[in-house]
């Protein structure tokens, strides 16, 4: 949305001449300055200690372990959120730990508090959501890792990204 503002400065000498006296009238057309549109990564998705052969799931409404993003923009703005999700976590020595995301592993949190309240969604598909009256939206992410019976021990990690598109109001 394009905005323009213009200022008009008008200086007029009015009335009985009073040297060097001038009355000025200024009018200004107000413009709408959009709030900065940002996406913020607040918290990693953490599965903690995982045992070989035993899948481990983090619910998206698990405030301790679920990943957490925040979108900030115009109040009541509409946004499109797309996730870039990994297929596996990787150990420093190259071993892979499969990870999966499914229906309900995404959570659009409208409560801004505990316990979280909102709507669950499938993070594998784009999310269309409205920012709250304060121009903010919290998005939580869960998932499931499936270690093999002979899964090599050690730390595993992978990046999870979101791209958010501002669709306006």
């Amino acid at each position, binding site marked *: 949305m394009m905005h323009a503002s*213009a200022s008009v*400065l008008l200086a007029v000498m009015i009335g009985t001449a009073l040297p060097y006296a001038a009355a000025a009238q200024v009018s200004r057309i107000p413009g709408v300055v959009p709030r900065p*549109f940002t996406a913020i990564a607040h918290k990693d998705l953490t599965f903690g200690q995982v045992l070989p052969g035993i899948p481990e799931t983090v619910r998206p409404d698990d405030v301790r372990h679920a990943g957490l993003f925040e979108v900030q923009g115009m109040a009541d703005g509409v946004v499109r959120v797309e996730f870039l999700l990994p297929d596996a*976590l990787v*150990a420093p020595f190259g071993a892979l730990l499969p990870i999966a995301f499914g229906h309900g592993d995404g959570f659009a949190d409208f409560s801004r508090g505990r316990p979280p309240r909102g709507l669950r969604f499938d993070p594998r598909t784009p999310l269309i959501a409205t920012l709250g009256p304060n121009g903010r939206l919290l998005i939580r992410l869960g998932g499931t890792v499936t270690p093999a019976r002979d899964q090599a021990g050690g730390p*595993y990690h992978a990046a999870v990204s979101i791209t958010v598109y501002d669709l306006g109001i």
Partner: protein
Amino acid sequence: MSRVPRLLPAVATLALVLASPATAQTTANASIQALAFVQGVAPITATGVNDLDFGIVLAGTPTSPTSLASQAGRWDITGEPGAPLTASLTLPVTLDGAGGSIPISFSATDGLQWNPFPTTSTTFDPNIPYLTNIDGSGNLTLGISGTVSPPAATTTGNYTGTITLTVSYL
């Protein structure tokens, strides 16, 4: 004579200022990490540390290594202490060189498990999968010997082949 006040000329200045339209950012990106720590077995690795070297062999004379410690092939394996594993060898039937190929064979006692290297070894049949354990320190050393049988008319030269060890947890 009175002086008629004069209106000073009106001065009008119009200043039209167009502010640059605020360009709205339309996309944003953010990334987090997905993290897990697997309480699992140590990764298993195998490293070839010595080639099976028959040295100088006379044509027409079957030859085996005279010093297993220095001439037998050898791999160092690391993994979960005490874990059972299976070891399989892919063995050639010939060594190839400038003069063609020469036969190589492996008997039921040509597989070696060093306990420890280079002082003590036990033998196993390298032609079939071998079941053993990684030791308490997470190490295992396996070796391979064999016999080459160059025909009498074998051309002088170097002859080589590849022996592959595959280890996996049970």
